[in-house]
């Protein structure tokens, strides 16, 4: 490695550089003082940045009108998942119109790469990647999200309703 050195006389004058830097700082200070709304920074965590609606954050399992899970446990998301972080156990539902549903749906969020392939593979719009992106936690935190968390966590306020509706589809003869 070669080291370049500037040994000219001019480089010995350091004061103009220091003053130039101070001037830049002062310029930003004054600008932010008199024009606070256009300030570039946020007071995290009181203020949070809102990403676009397409942002791929934590998973949400959608629900039907009656609040039950939309998922039919077809395992396409688990099959398509490149990180293999989804684990589903299917079971027979009492209602013959539903037939099959997941009794357990778990996502190992520490393995998840948020690629959105599960969302894309789902034929019934049962899983979506939501807007939440802050999932801090220490060692003891639960990083394996279960059905209860995915579909009914408090932020979702009773669950997110899917636009695909079985009864409407049946009426349309699909």
């Amino acid at each position, binding site marked *: 490695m070669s080291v370049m050195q500037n040994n000219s006389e001019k480089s010995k004058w350091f004061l103009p550089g220091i003053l130039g830097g101070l001037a830049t700082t002062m310029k930003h200070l004054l600008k932010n003082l008199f024009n606070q709304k256009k300030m570039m920074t946020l007071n995290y965590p009181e203020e949070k940045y809102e990403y676009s609606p397409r942002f791929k954050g934590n998973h949400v399992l959608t629900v039907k009108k009656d609040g039950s899970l939309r998922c039919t446990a077809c*395992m*396409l998301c688990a099959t398509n998942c490149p990180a293999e972080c989804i684990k589903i156990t299917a079971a027979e539902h009492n209602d013959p119109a539903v*037939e099959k549903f997941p009794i357990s749906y778990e996502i190992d969020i520490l393995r998840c790469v948020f690629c959105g392939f599960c969302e894309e593979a789902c034929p019934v719009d049962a899983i979506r990647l939501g807007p939440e992106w802050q999932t801090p936690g220490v060692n003891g935190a639960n990083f394996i999200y279960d059905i209860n968390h995915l579909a009914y966590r408090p932020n979702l306020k009773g669950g997110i309703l899917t636009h695909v509706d079985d009864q409407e589809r049946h009426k349309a*003869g699909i």
Partner: protein
Amino acid sequence: MPKCTINGKEVEVKEGTSIIEAMQQSGDRIAHYCWHPGLSVAGVCRLCVVEIEGNPRVQIACNTMVTEGMKVNNTSEKVKDAVKWGLDFHLINHPLDCPICDQAGECGLQDQYMEYGKYDPEMAEAKVKKHKVVDLGPTVVLDSERCILCSRCVRFTEEVSKTNELGLFNRGDRTEIGTHDGMLLDNKYSLNTVDICPVGALTSKDFRFRQRVWYLKDGDSVCNGCSTGCNIKVYYNKEGLFRIKPVYNEQVNGHWMCDSGRNAYKFVNREARLVKGVVAGKEMAPGAAAKSASEVLKSTSGDALALVLTAQYTVEEYEAIIKTFVEEFKTKKVFFWVNNKETFDTFDGLLSRGDKNPNTKGLLKVMEKYGITSTWADLSAGLANGSIKTVVVAGPENQAVFPDYNERLKELSKAQNLIWMQAGKNDALTALTGNVWIIPMKTFVEKDGTFINFSGLEQKIKKVTNVVSEALTLTEATLLMVGKNLALPTANAAFMPNNQRDDQVTLEARKKNEFVFRRGSL
């Protein structure tokens, strides 16, 4: 022997062969649902259409016999168009519930649709809704919406099981499969209807929703449910075995197998298995348990030693253990534990036999080879008067077919030392106290070997998967019980380089290299 031309290839077939069979013979692919090689021809799906030269209309291949000089093709635009529209009719009332359907992944309709499908349906009418989740009997669930009315299952109950439970009811697009009034689909071969259903209309209650088929691997084996020895495929993944399906073998089972044979996977799975060996109440690794049994066997004289065998192991294993007993331990007290003696020779006329052991013939053959003539009465007498002190038992894999299990266990536990080898868990066995060795065994899907079926046909089985990897085969357990070690067979110098230069540094010299020496292993 008529000759015909199929898609430009000349094929010679037997007299009375249909075009579809000739196409299978020539290796050409053809769309079909209702045709099944083991059933009669129905010709209801109209998908196996072909164009025959000189015939203006397309014909179905399953019900047209090959004649001399016939020129057939199914690759023309006309045929493709016909199949495409035929498929569209099949899909008129078929629901799109592949996410729920258990057949997804191995469904005939999915496959055909990918190949010939008309991707834009032109039906304006709504689908006819039929019954969903119909309970047909103890083993099968029907979804009549998914049914495409190929009538394979109906023909199966008419022609093969001859029980006639199923029928087609109503007319037109309201036709449904169902059971006759007051009947249930309840026969010993009912699950074959699930196998031959080309769509997901009939699903097995046992397998339903438990696993998606694309997560399963399969391997060929031979059923150990009875002495027929049906050829099977076992479907498994890392969680264990999930189902068994028959494989076509004309000599043995044709296309079918019985329902009780399909349950054979249950006693193989880990939750039903012995995992740890037990020596006098202390848990041990299986190999260590067998090794500790070698001490008591060595100290027992030949006359006081008996071996009890069930006919559920392979010929190679019998050979190993009987040879050891006759030659090393100098005893000919080898006994055949016959379960359900009364029904041993019964046969239901199709596949299932009263002898519920896969290898009775094999055991008898090996016993004959070593001139063993002892009967169970000798053993009972020996146990009663105390002349037999140590008993080695190769217990059953499938305990369900041993109704006399507890009785025999009680009788054999009279012996001073009892060495019991078995694959499955059993409460009565683990409750035994005193000098008891329990050694976990491998099951038929975990080892190589030979089964000889009722007719004397030798069938080789290959290892499919490992469920309890630490369990032993009878051969391995025998080696350990003699006091030898299990050695891996290694080919000598198989991987030594053969293109070395004369001045090549050899391994011995390299070890002495100062640089490597100082740094430790690289």
